[in-house]
């Protein structure tokens, strides 16, 4: 991997070389080096925690517990998809996603401990959003059945868009340490969403009959996503009038693929 710096310009490459480049370990490393160098557990180690009112601390713990569930789902899904990924370069990309998701889980668990949670496992069980748990089960069913399109759609489009939107909303009013953690995670999620949109976009162009199938999956997951969304935005104290703006942002990400039928 080259020294620090911006990733090389891949858009001048032929399609096949472009995909090899943007899915490579080197490309990933150059991307994450820019925002992870000199951080510890996702934030500047010199940043000091500000005292949080108890109600805010409680709400933050609930939000982080559910982030851990989402990231565990993403970790297990992305690792499970490597075995049947359709090309070498996609396997490489998914490997970088696996370590991203593992890192997110690690930094959120660490944040929980910083907030005084002694047993994160127990806390996660207690505060889990049931809709998110159902979403996780459904996603892993797609993964286990080796249904590539459904798994990419549920994971890299729906789940990643959901997380991206929630983390963005939360970062706007989070304490400084949580905000720094979220900002780096958001950058990873943007890469993962880009992969999902790109991969499915190409498949949809070649096989249009895939569109109604993905539309059906979306409708099956919609209720779980919206319930998760509402719960998490409430925990992150996003004002009600702002919630619609973020919901629209999530729906727009899914609609870009034209499967929102």
């Amino acid at each position: 991997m080259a020294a620090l710096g911006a990733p090389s310009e891949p858009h001048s490459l032929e399609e096949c070389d472009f995909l090899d480049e943007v899915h490579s370990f080197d490309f990933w490393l150059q991307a994450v080096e820019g925002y992870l160098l000199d951080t510890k557990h996702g934030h500047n180690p010199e940043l000091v925690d500000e005292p949080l009112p108890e109600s805010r601390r409680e709400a933050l713990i609930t939000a982080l517990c559910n982030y851990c569930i989402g990231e565990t789902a993403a970790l297990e899904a992305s690792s499970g998809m490597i075995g049947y990924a359709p090309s070498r370069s996609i396997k490489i990309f998914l490997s970088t996603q696996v370590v991203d998701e593992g890192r997110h889980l690690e930094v959120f668990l660490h944040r929980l401990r910083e907030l005084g949670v002694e047993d994160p496992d127990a806390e996660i069980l207690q505060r889990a959003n049931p809709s998110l748990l159902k979403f996780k089960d459904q996603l892993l069913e797609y993964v286990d059945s080796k249904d590539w399109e459904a798994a990419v759609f549920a994971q890299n489009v729906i789940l990643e868009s959901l997380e991206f939107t929630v983390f963005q909303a939360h970062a706007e009013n989070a304490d400084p340490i949580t905000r720094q953690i979220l900002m780096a995670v958001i950058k990873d999620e943007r890469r993962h969403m880009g992969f999902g949109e790109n991969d499915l976009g190409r498949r949809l162009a070649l096989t249009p009959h895939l569109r109604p199938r993905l539309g059906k999956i979306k409708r099956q997951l919609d209720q779980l996503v919206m319930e998760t969304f509402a719960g998490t935005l409430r925990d992150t104290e996003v004002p009600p009038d702002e919630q619609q703006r973020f919901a629209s942002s999530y729906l727009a990400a899914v609609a870009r693929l034209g499967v929102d039928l």
Partner: protein
Amino acid sequence: MSDFLSAYSIQSWLESCPQGYLMNTDYGHALGEPEPQAYLENDVLRNDALSTMTQLVLGERCALAASSGLINCAPDYASKHFLATQTLDEERHVEIFTQRMFDLGVKKDELESTLNHYGNPHLLKFAEVLLEKVDKGDFVAGVVGQNIVLEGMAFSVFEMLKAVNEESNPKLAQILSGTIADERRHVGFGENRIGALIREFPERKPEIEQMQKEMTYHMLATFAEAFSDREETYEESRRVLGTGEDSQAMWHGANLSALEPQEMEQVLADTVLKEFKVRLGRIGLDYQSPATPKAA
């Protein structure tokens, strides 16, 4: 457990690997370091290099499938985190060894056929035994097969290849040096994490020892085939690269430059088996000797 596992966190991995020994490298070697001309111009050397790289790519593909497949059945978050880093390590190894095949002149659309041509069937059997355990979601057997047996073999093979290539091919030696650092971490995790699980589930020992025996058989068969009928290749290599009795490629007390292929196979097999016995002993398993495979 959590204290020792903190050494295998993603934070530790980021600091030691991508932000450590991989800084300022390109596909695992120094920026701009060329492939030695001899490997590009001499067909015997090039074929030999492609054959070796093929086994490394196939072995790493197996490790990738195993480490990613084990994440879902890992019993705790810390193990999942470590396996996430191992997944990316293994994929990086696949990528850099594949890149060397491209550097040796293999075209992208010829990669799979080249791997099929040079692939050692015993190595594929070795992988099958391991991946069967992984597919069943058997975490304990999977980690023993992957992080003790496969990684233990890879560790010694990489070390030996590095010693052989230190003088004649600094690019390959540096690539191997980074992978050895990764494998050391993987083997360490296997030893540290699995010992406790074996003590917790002692009834699993016979089945896991049987897996080790089968994997060891296929590993020794892989070595036997890899070192058979290699006299001419060795002779040509020593003639072109100028390596021979005057060179000092010392590894485990043997001067590899002066050894014949069968002697080299013996040194490698002895080293790997000795390491297996030590590592298996540390986690409470008894090494099981397989039958001796015949050379092809």
